[in-house]
């Protein structure tokens, strides 16, 4: 019995009905040449699928999230436009920061200092006061909204640390700001990322990751709020896709 290429391809793709499948399976066992043809279809499929699979791991461009949510996105939309993922150079698989590494931030300056500091520089403040609370804005808001710890680059201005669901049900994410040398924790309240704690970081440029000193302020805040375990790469991605709701 000879089989045409389309039939063998359909067999390799699992598209045949049970009777046809059984017949070809039997033929393939006896005929190495036939087996090779089936294998070739499978190999091509695996190779093509494998090559494009990595696109799934890339960070989502803010402009697409914005486009999907339509014109009503308002401030979130403007924030997202700041982000330019497509222009990023290669994205080395960044290690996630464990709670301990976040602990490395040589802590202790809380909220008040920041309000007066460069974070509120007029160009694109990372923090803005709103209704008596301090919320993330500018590049920090964008990063909290769209950046994945699993795919971010060491050179990103904002480094996302641990993400988790808090006991009151909202998502919280810890972050570090390279330029400002500061770190903190933000929780999604409504459509905003409300800052619950901030601390000075001794060295955001890399040494921080190796440092081992405990980080009282942020770490304590994480421990006080976290329900269960931090999100892993997959659940973090799902949470982002779901708009952190």
């Amino acid at each position, binding site marked *: 019995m000879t089989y045409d*290429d389309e039939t063998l*391809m359909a067999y390799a793709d699992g598209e045949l009905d049970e009777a046809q499948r059984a017949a070809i399976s039997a033929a393939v066992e006896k005929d190495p040449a036939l087996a090779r043809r089936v294998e070739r279809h499978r190999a091509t499929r695996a190779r*093509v699928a494998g090559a494009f699979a990595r696109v799934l791991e*890339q960070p989502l461009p803010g402009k*697409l999230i914005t486009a999907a949510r339509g014109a*009503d996105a308002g401030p979130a939309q403007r924030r997202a436009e700041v982000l330019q993922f497509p222009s990023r150079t290669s994205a080395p698989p960044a290690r996630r920061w464990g709670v301990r590494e976040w602990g490395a931030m040589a802590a202790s300056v809380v909220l008040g200092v920041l309000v007066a500091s460069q974070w509120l520089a007029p160009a694109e403040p990372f923090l803005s006061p709103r209704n008596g609370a301090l919320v993330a804005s500018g590049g920090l808001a964008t990063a909290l909204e769209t950046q994945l710890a699993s795919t971010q680059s060491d050179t990103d201005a904002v480094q996302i640390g641990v993400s988790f669901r808090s006991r009151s049900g909202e998502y919280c994410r810890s972050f570090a700001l390279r330029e400002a040398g500061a770190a903190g924790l933000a929780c999604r309240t409504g459509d905003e990322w409300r800052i619950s704690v901030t601390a000075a970081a001794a060295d955001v440029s890399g040494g921080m990751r190796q440092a081992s000193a405990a980080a009282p302020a942020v770490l304590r805040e994480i421990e006080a709020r976290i329900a269960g375990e931090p999100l892993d790469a997959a659940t973090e991605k799902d949470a982002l*896709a*779901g708009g952190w709701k």
Partner: protein
Amino acid sequence: MTAPTEEISEGIVALLPRLRRFARSLSRNQHDADDLVQLAIERALRNHEQFRGGASLSGWLFTIIKNAWLDQLRARTRHREVALPEDSGEHPAVSPVDTDTELWSVSEAMDKLPEEQRLAIALVLVEGLSYKEASAVLEIPMGTLTSRLARGRATLAAALGEPA
């Protein structure tokens, strides 16, 4: 924003990784792919009433991306015939995000396929749709889908140097 569109919006956001992958398998770099996805999203939201609740949102979006891509190809062809006989430079050979050589070589091989074969390959091999789902997205009979897929696959296998 009305409730149904919001539902579609969030559905689109959840599907973004796959939409980008599908578009990437049709485009030569991620930058063009993302532009294509953006265009398709805008079309989808403008025509959201065409989406039938209960139908596959991904299938509907794949069809919109497919149509947007074909429109772009035709527009580019017309543009080139008029003014730009050579490559216009719209596709930079190396995009900063495409440093991955495996992705690049498979993408190059895909790029040489006729557009209808590329669509079949993209939907079945890359997106993992069944033949039936893929033929629905492409709005063609299953037999047509199968023969396009087989031809595209043979060309790809040869180009990628799979053992014969």
